[in-house]
């Protein structure tokens, strides 16, 4: 546990000594604002909720999170610092978890900085704040799932660009699985249970049900098991690559 904590602290501090963290946060905040106000017509809808804010999160994460996750392992490997890390008295799993947690908390910080949106809706009307709390929790845990996928893919390669592209594509599959167009494509020929299974593995399905204001154990299990599975895979892959 204390090993995880040490790695977590070291990594998180690492974010803030480079301009990268600030650039990421600025871009994230700027884009959420633009999406909410212009594409989501937040003001024109006239409804005191944050639907037009949260509905773009899966798409924003799709491109922003791989940008964080791509360097998690690929950079270490490229610069050779991975050897150093592996000589330390920490297990692979601890290293994976520590790095993942620091990236996750970092995205959490970016998410928290969107609080002016929350103040804005409360200023304009009388929103259901319970729904907003649930949505924030949902968004955060979904970000964790994106990161876990990114962690694993970053562990596979030395090249950050390749890690980025593959992560985007993989995450896109998880997003699109719940998209009507994709489901329609399957509906033509695949049996219904398969269609349902595909749609039940989509980020969109689970995230949208949380943003209604209900935190269902099934949605939490989905995201947590997904994170667990990808992290476990990351640990194995880092371990496998160690010998190479």
């Amino acid at each position, binding site marked *: 546990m204390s090993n995880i904590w040490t790695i977590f602290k070291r990594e998180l501090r690492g974010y803030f*000594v480079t301009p990268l963290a600030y650039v990421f946060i600025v871009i994230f905040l700027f884009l959420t604002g633009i999406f909410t106000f212009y594409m989501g017509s937040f003001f024109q809808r006239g409804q005191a909720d944050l639907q037009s804010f949260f509905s773009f999160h899966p798409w924003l994460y799709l491109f922003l999170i791989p940008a964080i996750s791509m360097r998690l392992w690929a950079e270490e490997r490229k610069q050779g610092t991975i050897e150093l890390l592996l000589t330390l008295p920490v297990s692979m799993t601890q290293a994976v978890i520590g790095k993942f947690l620091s990236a996750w908390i970092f995205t959490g910080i970016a998410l928290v900085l969107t609080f002016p949106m929350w103040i804005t809706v409360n200023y304009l009307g009388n929103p259901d*704040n319970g729904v907003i709390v649930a949505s924030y929790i949902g968004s955060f845990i979904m970000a964790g799932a994106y990161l876990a996928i990114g962690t694993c893919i970053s562990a596979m390669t030395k090249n950050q660009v390749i890690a980025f592209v593959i992560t985007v594509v993989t995450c896109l599959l998880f997003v699109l699985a719940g998209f009507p167009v994709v489901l329609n494509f399957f509906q033509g020929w695949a049996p219904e249970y398969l269609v349902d299974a595909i749609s*039940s593995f989509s980020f969109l399905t689970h995230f949208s049900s949380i943003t209604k204001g209900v935190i269902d154990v099934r949605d939490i299990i989905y995201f947590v098991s997904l994170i667990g599975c990808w992290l476990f895979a990351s640990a194995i892959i880092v371990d*496998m690559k160690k010998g190479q």
Partner: protein
Amino acid sequence: MQKGRLLSWIGLVGAVVLLLAINILSTVTFRQYRLDLTEDKLYTLSDGTRNIINSVEEPIHLTLYYSKGLASGAPSLRSHAQRVQEMLEEFSDRAGDKITLEVVDPAPFSEEEDEAVLNGLQGVPMTQAGDNFFLGLVGRNAIDQVQTIPFFDPQKDQFLEYDVAELVYNLSHPERKVLGVMSSLPFLGNVDAFDVLKSEAEREPPWIMATQLQQLFDVRKVETTATEIDDDIDVLMVIHPKDLSDQTLYAIDQFVLNGGRAMVFIDELSEMDRPPFDENNPYNSLWANRTSDLEPLLSTWGLSMEEEVVASDMKGAMRIPTRDESGRQQVVQYLPWFVSTKDTMNDKDVITAGLESVMVASAGILHKIDNTDLDITPLMTTSEESWRVPMNLVQFGPQPQNILDEFKASGEKFMIAARVSGIAKSAYPDGPPTEEGAEPTEEQMQKHVQKSDKPINVLVVSDSDILADDFWVQKQNMFGRQVIIPMAENFSFVANAAENFSGNSDLISVRSRGGFMRPFERVQELAKNAESKYREQVTELESKLKETEDRISEMQTQKEDAQSLVLSPEQQAEIEKFREERVRIRKELRKVQAELREDIEALNTRLKFINIGLIPLVVALIAVVLGLIRINRRRV
């Protein structure tokens, strides 16, 4: 080495299998575990519903007809349908084997579709081919009685639980409910078994409202002289209670305190209360008292009605034909007769939610008494463009012009109908009323209820004309058959109330869960302020514009009158002048309209700046400052 790799691969494959297994298992197992964070607990069954489910004794079979295939193209409909299905599953999960649920997908042109239609479900055309989308419920109890919900309307989402709970309740309590009617007006007509000798002219048929209620309830007459209300009456309807004796009032008081539900229609001026015309004294009928108030019960229920005034409303006022001073026929607004619309009805109460128009005629004005402990929920009000009409302007027949002349908007929303609930006390604290001087007997005192055990349920409406045919239906003769065309939803209002009240208290407690609509109140306020500020300006400009246009057309007709093809130069110049004037006024109007939006647009821009620009800027600044500090430190 090789062995390690193999193990790793097995681990990876195992992880994926485990992931799939966990999720497939959790979808089935953890259906009921969720944390409802919504303010109104939109996704949690209320206690009332749970009690209803627990009290089901004979098995009920529910069939949900849901065209799943057709819904796939519309995600919002799909999620609504999913919510419906999950709600029903929750009902059946909670009830054990007492409620079974079956989900049927009625594909187009299938047997199931025919079945759905046969059971009265409503299909909504979805595709260009005209395939019908179904999302409705058919419930069957052990004795094969059927209740349906023809279509789960996404707009009525907040009543989903109530609708299903009502269906379940009705199926588990199949006996017809008894509706007692105590009326000083001929609501039930005046024909009964003993009236065979009455001539055709003397016979009065029951009001249409009564006939329609008879289809839903076992309607029973209660005399206005009754000294006791039967226990088996579920809902008592009291209509225009005039000159009731203390004994009768006491009976109503005790009926309500003992858990009976009452719907009371009092009136400041009953349009249907027409005293017989007396040849010897023709003014007598004009001066006759047409008021009813049900005191002292009304004040113990926490309400009072203003005396000698009736409510009027400019917004929904009826237009009626009348004659002006010169005897010309014209149609004018008669303000005391108005339609209560969506805006003036409580959309959170199951009685009035979804209603669009209820016609009201010369209603009294209700007030909540200041120090009452009872819950008074207003169900229907006037708009803010209302005025207290003094009795002398309505008593002797409609005087629309006089009322219009004196009208001055009060800015108040007068209460017309209210739901009363809570623990109530008797209006007769000293026991049953008796003959002068006599003491109530011991037996009477023993039966006397001083305070209700459970919350009472009373609906008070300050208008009895709401029930009268004249104000809500049109009767037409078609090939010798009378056809009834409703003009307003007065029947739905009364029937909703009667159905809500005839359910048990659990069902009554299942109210709406608050709407999903949460508007930007601040923006609405801005719009309202701006509008009132500019309205005067706009009316002025508009009348000016009208004047100018009239002048132009007048001049053009003048030309035709003169039979000349050419306008004189003066005329031409004049017209040109007016045209310019019109362009100028139009421009000004547009400017005023633009100004109307100005404040709101300014707010929008400000919020955009804060959310899109300001915070990223602050973060960037912090980054720069921290960076500089770091560089400095390094130099040192």
